[in-house]
């Protein structure tokens, strides 16, 4: 079994675990990585201790030929613990730079001890310092990567929420709803849109629904199918569906595609659709002038 290139580092971690731990935490405080407002000293010490133990087993098993790769199996434990601590701290509001500098503080502690033990062997000293630097730098980069990944997940969640927001069901008048569709309509989104709309029909006791597709870029067979199904479901619920915003270009495409809208009412503009919808619920929009004449009668 080949020896580790970091023999002295391993010895230090073995002989003086508590000493290294204490010095590291002190050093981290000095470097400004301490956030006693966000986590307790007890927690910090426990986290640092588990990192040190994983570091030691990684050095023992993985650092044999000088090729260091944090992705190796030997470092699986350390990666796990680093990720866990990073999640926990980030969640509490620790900055990624603070997390990285906490990890980097271990370097100073290790350098001091290496200098003492390898006074007589400058070549080995330089060698081990180089290797330990490489390793600890990689740990720090890793915590930043974990942090970024966590952020990406947050962004993805927000994107999903935006998607939901981008299909609002609006109450135009008593018993009249409108759903302005924007962008593209894939199957998953179509299902969500339909569900939102049907639930709004129940909640608002709506009798007419205007699905406006002015903002839909292209209507292919699939989108047309979704629209027809939505209209069918609206009718099954007991409300009337009007599809508005069908441009001449979209009308031509639909005919070319052989889409038969059947009994679904279609209107070119939302304005026409609104007139129809209001008539259906017994309301009319009149100029005030004419309204005066009507009421005067």
């Amino acid at each position, binding site marked *: 079994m080949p020896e580790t290139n970091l023999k002295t580092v391993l010895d230090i971690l073995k002989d003086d675990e508590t000493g290294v731990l204490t010095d590291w935490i002190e050093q981290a405080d000095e470097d400004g990585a301490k956030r006693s407002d966000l986590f307790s000293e007890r927690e910090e010490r426990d986290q640092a201790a588990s990192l040190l133990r994983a570091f030691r087993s990684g050095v023992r098993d993985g650092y044999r030929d000088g090729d260091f790769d944090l992705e190796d199996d030997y470092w699986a434990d350390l990666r796990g613990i680093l990720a866990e601590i990073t999640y926990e701290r980030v969640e509490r509001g620790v900055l990624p730079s603070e997390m990285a500098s906490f990890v980097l503080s271990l370097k100073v502690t290790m350098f001091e001890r290496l200098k003492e033990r390898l006074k007589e062997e400058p070549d080995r000293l330089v060698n081990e310092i180089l290797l330990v630097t490489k390793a600890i730098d990689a740990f720090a980069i890793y915590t930043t990567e974990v942090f970024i990944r966590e952020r990406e997940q947050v962004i993805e969640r927000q994107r999903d929420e935006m998607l939901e927001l981008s299909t609002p069901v609006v109450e135009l008048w008593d018993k009249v709803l409108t759903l302005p569709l924007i962008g593209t309509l894939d199957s998953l989104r179509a299902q969500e849109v339909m*569900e939102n709309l*049907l*639930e709004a*029909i*129940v909640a608002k*006791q709506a009798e007419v629904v205007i699905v406006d597709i002015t903002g839909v870029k292209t209507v292919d067979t699939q989108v047309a199918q979704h629209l027809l199904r939505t209209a*069918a*479901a609206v009718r*099954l619920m*007991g409300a009337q569906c009007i599809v508005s915003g069908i441009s001449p270009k979209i009308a031509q495409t639909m005919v070319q595609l052989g889409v038969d809208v059947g009994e679904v009412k279609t209107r070119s503009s939302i304005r026409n659709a609104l007139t129809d919808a209001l008539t259906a619920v017994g309301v009319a929009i009149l100029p005030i002038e004419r309204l005066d004449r009507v009421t005067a009668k």
Partner: protein
Amino acid sequence: MNAASIYSVEGILLVSIRADIADSDIIDLQDVLSQRIADTGARGVVIDIAELDIVDTFVGRVLAQVTSISKLLDAETYVVGMRPAVAMTLVELGMYLPGNRTALTLSHALARMREDGLTDDSAG
């Protein structure tokens, strides 16, 4: 038959179907309902399915049949109270129930039947 009840309001027959109705109950209902339409001379039928957990192809087919039978006996049929999840499932099954009239609730259906002169009051 205890899986559904039929009431008469303003000359309209109101049918409310209970949640765990079995196929044979629905067939019975179709029989009883046809007879009641003929006996009472009702011009309208409202089938409330708000309590039904699901409408599968069998129930969908019976609903369509009841509508056709009613039409032959000169009565309009409304299906009311369909839940959103049921409507979406039916559409996926390709069952659009084109012959049925639909309304949100019983009172919506009754209001429209009054407008159309199908209730006793409006007729008399």
